[in-house]
């Protein structure tokens, strides 16, 4: 594979108007990614699939990443070429976290293998994929009403008993049982002494 800068130039030449940015989101990321805007992700993906230099015929991974503080959800696509035996090209798309606006064009029409993975991203992160043929929950049950992998998801308060509670679990177990945390008692004692 060529350098990421060259790949970006080739994609820009093929898809005029696309906004592509090279990002190293984490220090641990071996492969820099191409951040593409939502409007042009389909075009850029199509370019990587059909261009004879890339022939990315295999989309191995689709996942969501929730950046709670920054306020967006990122959808990550990993592309490989089985024909040319090269890869990986990482494509990223960002979308607002709000459920109504959390939309990304589906790449299932390009790679059939994306279908279940996009359903998983929808199920766990609430990303709606426009153009997906069958966008339903895949892991959680149909009656489930939330998206559990979002950072602000609040799980049901079922801490009725924990054998070895610690840290956050201990706090939640105390809360569920209506136990006053020791720190609050200490503060109350201090206030009394004063």
């Amino acid at each position, binding site marked *: 594979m060529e350098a990421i800068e060259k790949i970006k130039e080739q994609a820009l030449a093929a898809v005029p108007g696309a906004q592509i940015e090279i990002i190293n989101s984490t220090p641990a990321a071996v492969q820099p990614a191409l951040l593409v805007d939502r409007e042009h992700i389909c075009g850029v993906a199509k370019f990587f699939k059909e261009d004879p230099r890339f022939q990315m015929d295999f989309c191995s991974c689709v996942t969501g990443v929730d950046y709670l503080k920054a306020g967006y959800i990122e959808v990550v696509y990993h592309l490989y070429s089985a024909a040319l035996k090269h890869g990986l090209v990482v494509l990223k798309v960002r979308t607002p976290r709000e459920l109504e606006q959390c939309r990304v064009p589906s790449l299932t029409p390009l790679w059939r293998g994306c279908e279940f993975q996009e359903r998983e991203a929808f199920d766990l992160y609430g990303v709606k994929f426009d153009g997906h043929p069958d966008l339903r929950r895949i892991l959680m049950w149909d*009656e489930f009403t939330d998206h559990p992998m979002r950072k602000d998801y609040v799980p049901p308060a079922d801490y009725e008993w924990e*054998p070895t509670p610690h840290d956050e679990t201990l706090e939640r177990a105390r809360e569920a*049982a209506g136990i006053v945390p*020791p720190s609050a008692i200490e503060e109350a004692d201090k206030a009394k002494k004063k």
Partner: protein
Amino acid sequence: MTDEGLKSELQKSGIFVLPFEQLYNWGRKSSIWPLQFGLACCAIEMIASAASRYDLARFGAEVFRATPRQADLMIVAGTVTKKMAPQVVRLFNQMPEPKYVISMGACAISGGPFKDGYNVLKGIDRYIPVDVHIPGCPPRPEALIHAIMTLQRKIAGQQLGVEQRWYDKTATTEFPIPAFGEHDLQPPANPEIWQPPRNYKDVTIAEVLKKD
């Protein structure tokens, strides 16, 4: 019957004298037919127990049945997700009495490492009565064999006609199947068979601090 001398004399000539109950239980405990289903990695250990190296056939429990109608024993081998729990309870309901449950591995007995997860049941004993719990992640085949021997001892000790669920005409053998709720299973546990071991309200702050 209590004359041990007469018993051993008869035994020498090939006549065995024993209470009917003992014979009946011997037959039951020596042919436990487990239900053939696995939920996660514990199932691999269960398969290993049934295969030649550990040879569950020595204990008469090698006939894994592919239908609950023919099974005596349910081995809950692996993580029970909240999505799977109703099906497990339904399978248990479909088994004929007398029936037994072995809860195999950390996940099946308590949720294990996934206990704090949004999708994992914190132990199958919340919905069905468990006879033997096996800790371990996953338990080795020896542990499963030990559990089956424990269950055999339990069966051998059971009295006919009294205090057993399947002799009681009024007792229910159908356990309520939990429904899918908006965030959790409804109800989250069957209060008739499961209560939290200890209420947190009874735990003093000093105890909690000591635990830390």
